[in-house]
């Protein structure tokens, strides 16, 4: 299987043009402050309003390598870096004709072409960037690791076009592994075939189709039986928001209060998408759904979504976190913690999973919608445990207006300016509230002083 590689990401909106990355590069590569030796180039924008970047992209199909007549340039199959061998290079500059990004360039002072070599995996430019405008993205390591793990679901699950819940459960169960048992109450996840049809299941681990109302308690009971016979298994619930926030809530609440040793994952697509897009208790204000229609009397849902993950923290169970499929590194870190925690107490993960079919946006845009949920603070990424309280894991410093998110989605198309302003206020209030929660001095934090 093809390998994924780490990469450098540039966030132009965070760059202030201090060019310390360039100095760090020149120092790392040539031991000088002479910026002509830097292999990363930050440039002012043409209109002077921001900054631009010229840097090697370590392309997957590098034309510089194809254009090299001497074999001096090669794509390293282990690191993904386009390596340059000075002893083979003949200074013909044909590589520069192959690069559309000014990533391999000639400087008379340097005397030969030069390009970024990723500093053997520890880029000096990233370390020097005080604004976080340069980021070393290492998620590839995760993907490569995941590719080697076994998929716990069969091929051919019949999720809708563009659904990320299928990806989410496949990734999740790869990490949970084969020593597990899964509960899946009515919803999209059983609907796509995980609990089976024609006498066969869609999963490679034991999976059962619990009721909407008893998932958490039934799973806790199954786990107890495994404990009794001396087998250690991870007990996982893959539930929708209906099975968690509405009909399922009393059993989830009870399990959390007892701190039953299970991993409960709420795959939140803001309603009953499997049965015809009815609203649930976590459907946001203003949303069109088949039970909160748009017409003369109603302009979408009139009430607010309840903040279920915050409610879960009030149960003092062992671990609670929110997650987004667009921020997988964040999710994987939380999932790893949750798996560990679930051996002794309850771990609750609330994953926000937009639904192209029910929310009315193009199926190609799912991940962009996920990303925009976080960029606008519509969704906040945080984690909680009783010892350390609540903390943000991906704080958004300069959130985009929530309207940028709403306008991507059909179920908000009817919103008036007042409604959008209302949603913006509730988003701001929610962040302010969470921010207050992060400031609560827990006993653990106090005794650490």
């Amino acid at each position: 299987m093809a390998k994924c590689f780490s990469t450098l990401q540039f966030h132009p909106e965070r760059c202030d043009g201090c060019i310390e990355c360039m100095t760090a590069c020149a120092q790392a590569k040539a031991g000088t402050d002479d910026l002509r030796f830097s292999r990363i180039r930050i440039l002012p924008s043409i209109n002077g309003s921001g900054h631009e970047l010229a840097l090697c992209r370590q392309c997957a199909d590098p034309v510089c390598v194809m254009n090299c007549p001497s074999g001096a340039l090669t794509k390293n199959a282990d690191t993904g870096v386009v390596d340059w061998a000075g002893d083979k290079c003949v200074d013909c500059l044909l590589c520069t004709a192959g690069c559309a990004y000014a990533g391999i360039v000639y400087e008379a002072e340097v005397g030969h072409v030069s390009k970024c070599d990723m500093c053997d995996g520890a880029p000096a430019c990233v370390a020097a960037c005080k604004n976080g405008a340069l980021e070393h993205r290492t998620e590839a390591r995760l993907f490569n690791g995941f590719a080697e793990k076994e998929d716990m679901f069969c091929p051919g699950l019949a999720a809708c076009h563009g659904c990320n819940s299928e990806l989410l459960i496949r990734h999740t169960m790869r990490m949970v592994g084969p020593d597990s048992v899964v509960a899946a109450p009515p919803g999209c996840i059983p609907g796509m075939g995980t609990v089976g049809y024609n006498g066969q299941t869609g999963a490679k681990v034991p999976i059962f189709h619990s009721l909407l109302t008893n998932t958490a308690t039934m799973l806790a009971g199954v786990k107890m039986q495994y404990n009794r016979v001396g087998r250690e298994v991870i007990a996982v619930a893959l539930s929708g928001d209906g099975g968690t926030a509405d009909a399922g809530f009393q059993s989830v609440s009870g399990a959390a209060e007892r701190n039953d040793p299970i991993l409960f994952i709420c795959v939140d697509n803001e309603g009953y998408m499997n049965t015809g897009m009815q609203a649930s208790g976590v459907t946001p204000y203003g949303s069109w759904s088949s039970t909160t229609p748009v017409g003369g009397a109603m302009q979408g849902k009139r009430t607010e979504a309840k903040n279920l993950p915050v409610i879960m923290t009030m149960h003092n169970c062992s671990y609670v976190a929110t997650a987004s499929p667009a921020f997988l590194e964040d999710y994987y870190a939380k999932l790893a913690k949750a798996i560990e925690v679930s051996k002794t107490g309850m771990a609750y993960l609330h994953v926000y999973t937009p639904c192209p079919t029910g929310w009315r946006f193009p199926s190609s845009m799912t991940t962009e919608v996920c990303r925009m949920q976080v960029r606008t603070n519509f969704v906040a990424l945080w984690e909680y445990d009783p010892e350390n309280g609540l903390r943000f894991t991906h704080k958004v410093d300069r959130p985009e207006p929530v309207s940028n998110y709403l306008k991507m989605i059909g179920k908000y198309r009817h919103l008036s300016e007042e409604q959008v302003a209302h949603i913006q206020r509730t988003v701001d209030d929610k962040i302010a509230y969470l921010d207050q929660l992060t400031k609560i001095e827990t006993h653990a934090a106090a005794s650490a002083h």
Partner: protein
Amino acid sequence: MHSKYLIVGSSHAALEGATAIRLIDSDGTLAMLTRDARLPYSPTILPYVVSGRSRPDKVKLRDESYFRANAIDFVSDATVASLDPAQQSLCLVSGETRRYDKLLIATGAAPALPPVPGLREVPYHVLRSMNDAVGLHEAMQHAKSALVLGAGLIGMHAAENMAEARIGVCVVEMQRHALSGYFEPRASTIIERTFTRNGIRMLMGRTLQRVERAGEGCRATLSDGSTIEADLLLVCTGVKPNMDFLAGSGIETEAGILVDDRMRTSAPNVWAAGDVAQARGFWGDKVLNGILPNAVEQGRIAGLDMADDAGLQPFPGAVPLNTYSFFGQQAISVGRAHADDGVDVKESGDDDKGVYRRIALKDGKLIGIATINDFIDAGVMWQLILRGTDLSAVRDKFIADPMLTGRQLMSQTWR
């Protein structure tokens, strides 16, 4: 022998064709035939082999393990004699027959000899194959003087190599200036002066009337009546596509093999790419564009089309392009910088310092740029031309600093 894919040739176009096929089709049988005895190498590297900077065994573009890993049957010493598109078969000089489902002709070009009386009776060198390069390198060890016929890229490269090996070199060129395919006279003059300063006699605007044997070397009579004696004669007067084996095949040719924007020839299941192919020029008629980046691009397109890649982007049209290093200096030419027909041309530089820049714009779009000792990103400039990026709003900035403005536009436009 039958293979699903058959590639004739083993240089850049052929190799990128094979890579592209393997991107899409990992196990269709694939054979690559080359008349060379060696593993693949680039004709562009040959001047560096001549100078001794690159060793012949260190410049291979692929090795046996690559062919093994990609299930490519690499066959050397295999020269094609004829092609029968109706039978989908090739006949080799050895008498062997090769059948194919899909064929890529990437046979490149061979030196074109000028019709100079006596040329074939005297010892002369050409520079197109590794054997040529090794032979020239050896001949230079004994030569004290050399005559280079033709001031194109190969001739100029070789002349520089010889001068650095302390051989007295004379370059004779029919055109009024060196490298006239890429540079206009002012730029060529700067380059010629550097050659002159390094002891090379640059005799431009002259042809050879006749040549005869003189001792171990030759004596040449020029069109101006003068004579030159040289131990070593190198003929670099251009190339012609290797397509003699197409005689009788019915495949349409002009200066090269005519291809469409997917590199398909007039015969079904036959593609051509690289120096042998005559494809659409970016500004019009079909042209030969014998440069390495062009071979890479065409080879890739041909390979993807042969493997039925649904996402194939057709050929955008050939743009002349070159990067040329001489005596530690750099000349770069992208597009039609030498154009002067109704274009907005801006020239700057300092001839004495050997710095030069010429930018040609038409309707606010870049059509060509050439520089000497003034680095520009040729790849970025090439994209600006291909994309037809409108530079009207930034014309003055671009003319003042094309490298910076090009990078800014690149970062903004195709971030």
